[in-house]
């Protein structure tokens, strides 16, 4: 039986993997090759595979903890980890060099809140420590648990209206669903966002 999904549909998009720190080196080079028969080649280790290896083998996390740290599912983490070990073994056995690059990733940063001016800010340069508030230069800031970009909150805050360009039917916009994918229940026409695009209540 042929899997029809694999024939006619593109695969599900990958979930972004959360990386806490970029690797401090960009690869490894072998030395002392005993059988010098041309170039042995290169293994490209993705940054997400490096991160999985770091969490599982260096930090000694189990796969469940590691998957939560990277914000992916446990089976996905296990697949990434297996790929990482396979690639590193290949590099060791065949004497290939390792280059760490690529992968569908984003770097996480921590958030701070300043009690003098009431602003929130993050620290994209992890190597450097924050010494003062970037806005008011005071040092009355503290670590802030990231809760304010919760989707639930944005869902209640969004007060937009989807409108049907054909018959004028209006309905409240649903968060996460593009208006043009909404279908008007009266005339089966695709809907659009009403008025100025973002009229949120703050």
């Amino acid at each position, binding site marked *: 039986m042929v899997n029809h999904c694999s024939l006619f549909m593109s695969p599900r998009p990958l979930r972004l993997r959360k990386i806490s720190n970029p690797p401090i080196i960009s690869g490894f080079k072998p030395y002392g090759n005993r059988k010098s028969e041309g170039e042995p080649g290169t293994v490209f280790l993705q940054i997400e595979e490096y991160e999985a290896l770091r969490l599982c083998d260096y930090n000694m996390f189990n796969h469940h903890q590691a998957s939560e740290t990277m914000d992916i599912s446990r089976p996905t983490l296990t697949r990434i980890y297996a790929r990482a070990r396979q690639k590193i073994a290949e590099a060791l056995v065949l004497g290939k060099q390792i280059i760490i690059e690529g992968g569908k990733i984003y770097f996480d940063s921590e958030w701070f809140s300043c009690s003098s001016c009431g*602003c929130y800010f*993050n*620290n994209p340069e992890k190597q450097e420590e924050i010494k003062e508030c970037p*806005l008011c230069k005071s040092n009355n800031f503290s670590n802030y648990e990231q809760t304010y970009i919760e989707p639930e909150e944005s869902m209640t805050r969004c007060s937009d209206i989807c409108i049907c360009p054909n018959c004028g039917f209006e309905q409240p916009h649903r968060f996460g669903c*593009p208006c043009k994918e909404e279908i008007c229940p009266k005339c089966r026409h695709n809907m659009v966002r009403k008025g100025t*695009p973002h009229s*949120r209540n703050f």
Partner: protein
Amino acid sequence: MKVAITSTGNSVQSNLDQRFGRCGFFIIYDTETKGMEFIPNPNKDAQEGAGPASVQLVASRNVQKIISGEFGIKIKSLLDSLKIQMIVFKEPEKTIQEIINMLNS
């Protein structure tokens, strides 16, 4: 160092815009030369993708910090990989001049 501030209008008397992707104007302020550049936001009325397009516009000016009232859900990972600092300042009454004074103090 360059700082981007989202503004409702094109003068220093206008208020801080509480949206990032669909703000009225971007103000690029240089803390060393004290120079200012006003860029009208072409993505103001975009149906979708205003945030990433605005990130691209602001990043092309080599800013290191962005001050705005709120950032959308698609923005954070982009700015993290570009190493641009986000400053969330939820005070719609503050004028651009007041924010620039805070940066200079």
